């Protein structure tokens, strides 16, 4: 059986430090927008920390929720693309083929999670960020969509290495940049087709929820909601 990559994010463990956001930018050669463009909604964070406040001051609780592409099994972004730029790859990822994209931005509208990003300009990096580009990831030109890939370059590298060494991929042997950089271990990545993998076991947890599950998109990212102890602690 092939792989089916998935992720679990534990909202109890997320501190909202945004290390994942920085790691993602560095790994995937995501251009910085600058303050003016960011204010105009042109910022590109393949993963973002959503911050929600509950209660009134001074009795406020902050909730953090890292949101990245949910790699849906029934992804609304895929059928709407007229050029197959947005497509479902054999390992269940919502892949974006950059050189097929003509920039209709229909996928970006159809995505209920708003995690698809359009290149409004050619990419630029403030110095010295231009010196740390990752050679394994292509740059994206103006006029096309881009999105989280679950660090497909790492997946492919690990698969090729395992094949060369004539062995199976081991669980936890490699991780996307966001998972790798999470200081509290709130994010877990792995193969959902392997029932013994950590991600499989955690995604079957009672605390497991899917983001906007009611839309029937069947995401492969599971959020572990906050446990009851949280409310007890702060009450």
């Amino acid at each position: 059986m092939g792989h089916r990559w998935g992720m679990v994010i534990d909202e109890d463990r997320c501190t909202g430090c945004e290390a994942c956001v920085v790691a993602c930018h560095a790994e995937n050669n995501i251009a910085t927008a600058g303050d003016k463009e960011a204010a105009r909604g042109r910022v590109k964070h393949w993963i973002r920390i959503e911050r929600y406040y509950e209660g009134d001051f001074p009795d406020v609780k902050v909730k953090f929720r890292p949101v990245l592409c949910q790699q849906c099994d029934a992804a609304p972004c895929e059928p709407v693309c007229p050029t197959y730029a947005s497509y479902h790859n054999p390992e269940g990822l919502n892949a974006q083929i950059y050189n097929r994209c003509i920039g209709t931005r229909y996928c970006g509208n159809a995505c209920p999670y708003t995690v698809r990003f359009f290149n409004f300009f050619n990419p630029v990096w403030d110095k010295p960020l231009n010196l740390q580009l990752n050679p394994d990831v292509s740059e994206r030109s103006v006029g096309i969509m881009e999105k989280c890939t679950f660090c497909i370059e790492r997946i492919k590298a690990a698969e090729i290495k395992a094949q060369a060494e004539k062995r199976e991929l081991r669980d936890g042997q490699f991780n996307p940049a966001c998972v790798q950089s999470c200081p509290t271990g709130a994010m877990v990545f792995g193969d959902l087709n392997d029932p013994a993998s950590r991600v499989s076991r955690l995604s079957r947890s009672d605390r497991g929820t899917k983001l906007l599950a009611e839309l029937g998109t069947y995401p492969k990212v599971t959020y572990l909601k906050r446990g009851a102890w949280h409310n007890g602690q702060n009450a």
Partner: protein
Amino acid sequence: MDKTPEQINQDLLRPIYHASWRFYASVAVLAALVLAAFYAWGYQMYHGLGVSGLNRPVYWGFYITNFVFWIGISHAGTLISAILRVSNATWRRPVTRCAEAITVFSLSIAAMFPLIHLGRPWLFFWLIPYPSERGIWPQFRSPLLWDFFAINTYLTGSVIFLLLPSFPDFALIRDRSNGWRKKIYSIVSLGWRGEPKQWHRLEMAMRIMAVAIIPVAVSVHTIVSWDFAMAPVPGWHSTIFGPYFVAGAIFSGIAALIIAMALLRKLLHLEEYLKPLHFENLGKLLLVMSLLWFYFVFAERLTTWYGNFPSEMSVFWSTQLGRFSPLFWTMVFCNFIIPAPILAIKSLRSKIGWTVVAAVPIVIGMWLERFLIIVPALSHKYLPYAYGTYRPTWVEITITIGTFAGMGLLYLIFSRVFPIISIWELKLGMQRKAEAAPELASQEAATEQP
């Protein structure tokens, strides 16, 4: 109409042979605006779409608004003209060609917008299914691809629909001209001799086209609405969108037709051809469509409100009471509260000036309607963290103004090249009336002159 055929020829062919300085002045002004729009488009292609006001999450804005709006205007023509032909409404004769021309031009303008809005417009031909080195076909599940085919079908059909009944008139110009004009019109009249066989074929072809173009027109705007309805975006994902868009399209189309006819009547001195009767009859159609439009908006709003889905309600309130509410209520005023009473009162409806007063706000209101369907929904998708807003820049505004200028420019040039009223159909109508039995003639007169 008591004019002799020769008088009709002279009246209606005058613009072909003579143009005043006003014509050249308006062409110059409109062409300058169109050039400005092309400059803006070039600027956008050079620098990237970032020079527009589009952003995440509002990936579609003015361009798609204009696209849907112009497709809507295009329903003026072919559809109205086809319905009037099929139902054999005798008063239609001076109206059809102005209407069919609106269709062809507004559709050509509309078809540019999907290109203008593309991130990489130079690759638009990837939508065409052709065997390529890339080894893939286009995605036939995508509504954008359905759009591509629907618009091309409609454009082809409406061009044929405009040209078919023009051949006898081209031949008439050919026979009355000398020099270069004779040469050109000999070519474009495609050897029309006025033989009985040719007349028979023309009538036959028009009968087929008039019936065939109606489902095409309905399907085009339905498919345009499906660009929205097929996406799980709150406020878009609605079964009512197909008929809602078709009704809105016919609505804005008739309004545009009334404005165009009023302008032509003044500028080309067609007072004796485009009579208050024509405006009144179109005004009645416009009243029906205004009521229908209100019904659709009311039904759509009420079901959303009762459904009370949180994501849909944030879109709903942003248009009813929130940020977009000034635009929403302007739209209701423009599309219903101003025109409906004017058109419902017979003494107002039968005056040309008043039908224009009713039609102008409708064109504005229908443009706003398209904007209000697209932008508030995209601004309020599911996750509140990713809410956004939209403000157009000079690039989008220039291109939008340029398309209105372009419509005027194409129409002006058209009125110098084509007889704007179908001469042979007008004469045929008179002939039929004269040949018919006296009681029939009086009956027709009764329907023509209320």
